[in-house]
């Protein structure tokens, strides 16, 4: 278990060194992305002007306040509360995000599945688990909303955040086939019969 401080963007080698149970804190830049953002990018043929190569995306749709463009808020949006949503719904977008945009890190909660694990392994990527429902804390790691794209999808726009000390986050899926979720789910399923027996359920 090693801790890494990563300044974004990162290289494939930097991502490949990460192993499950390592921890990571990110700095500089993070992109926010969500269901509608990716449905429009990968199903409706829309593109973004942002260069996501080597970057991290977080599954989020923030609470923001329109304040107009200023030096402090170059996007025109002030962050109110920025948290993380359940990743499972966005499983099928992991590979195109990596193949078409060069994304290296996905941050979310609840984990992703086999197709994402394969994409991480084939292309060099990781899934970092953030703790869902702790948005008040997460918001303190975000300095500014620098830019926004695809904003007609608000709040599911593509957000560019400036971050400082975003973490620690847990490496929950790595580029070597490791997944904490697979391990925990398998162990839990093994306990099913014992729990049902304790409830007096006749098999």
């Amino acid at each position: 278990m090693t801790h890494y401080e990563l300044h974004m963007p990162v290289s494939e080698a930097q991502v490949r060194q990460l192993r499950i149970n390592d921890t990571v804190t990110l700095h500089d830049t993070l992109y926010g992305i969500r269901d509608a953002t990716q449905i429009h990018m990968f199903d409706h043929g829309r593109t973004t002007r942002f260069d996501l190569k080597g970057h991290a995306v977080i599954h989020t749709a923030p609470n923001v306040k329109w304040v107009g463009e200023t030096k402090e808020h170059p996007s025109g949006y002030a962050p109110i509360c920025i948290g993380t949503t359940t990743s499972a719904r966005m499983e099928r977008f992991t590979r195109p995000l990596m193949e078409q945009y060069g994304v290296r890190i996905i941050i979310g909660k609840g984990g992703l599945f086999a197709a994402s694990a394969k994409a991480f392994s084939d292309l060099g990527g990781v899934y970092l688990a953030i703790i869902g429902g702790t948005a008040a804390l997460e918001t303190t790691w975000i300095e500014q909303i620098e830019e926004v794209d695809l904003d007609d999808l608000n709040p599911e726009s593509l957000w560019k955040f400036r971050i400082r000390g975003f973490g620690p986050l847990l490496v929950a899926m790595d580029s070597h086939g490791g997944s904490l979720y697979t391990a925990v789910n398998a162990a839990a399923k093994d306990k099913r019969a014992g729990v049902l027996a304790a409830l007096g359920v006749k098999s």
Partner: protein
Amino acid sequence: MKVDLKQVEEACKELYVRALKMLPPDIKQGFQRLDRAETNATGKAILGTMIRNITVAEENTNLLCQDTGIPIYNVVIGANVAVDGHALKQAIVSGCTRATKEHPLRSSVVHPTTRKNEHTSGGRHVPVINIDFSADAEQLSIEMIPKGSGSENNSWLKMAIPADGVDAIKTFVIDCVLEAGGKSCPPVIVGVGVGGTADLCVHLSKVAATRPLGSQCADPEGARLESELSKVVNQLGVGAQGLGGDSTAFAVHVETAATHITMNPVAVNMQCHSARRARATFTPQGVEYGY
């Protein structure tokens, strides 16, 4: 007692924001209880961060979670309360819209097929408004629940058959907890509806999931079932955020209703660890806020 609808609108605005920012004391105590019992290092660290988040939200008067949820208002009207029911509903919708625009809050509500967001936290039949009646003569109570989608997406109904008995109910609950894994943002309150019609069964599972920790099902059979399930659910090892440990659930809650001789329905609805709710009670003395 006559209800001032301006006051209701104001309270419904206030309730949405309060619910999003302040976790009820029973949930905070639930966290302390899980934290004391947790034996897994990852689980312990996750619970520690969740507890810290509650403090940060209070200190910064910020939202606990970014998910503003689907707004639900549960109204209970006392026996001697005089109110225009239609206008009451309008006041609730208006309060909910104002909270969204004036705070502002992320409107998490869209049309189901066009996916258009009106940025009001509302739309057809939303906010959800449930109305019930009580014998408390001089009292109107409104409970607000912002129901997060991470947990709501983990909802199930099974129309089991009488021959499968209570075993089918217990098995279904355990299988739903396994299926939800980390997706429902555990530790959760597992809400279980037993009996009724299909829609009533699902509704009861939501009532169960959003009941305060420490409360019991009024039906002794339901209370026994929830006690049995609560004792074993954390043996599954799903853990906080689905990353392992002893903190899969704060509790399993059960609500029951009579059902048909041919039916044995069971529904499960999850409530995430951000188990938010707020309440306003209107009496002739004024409005009082609580949980």
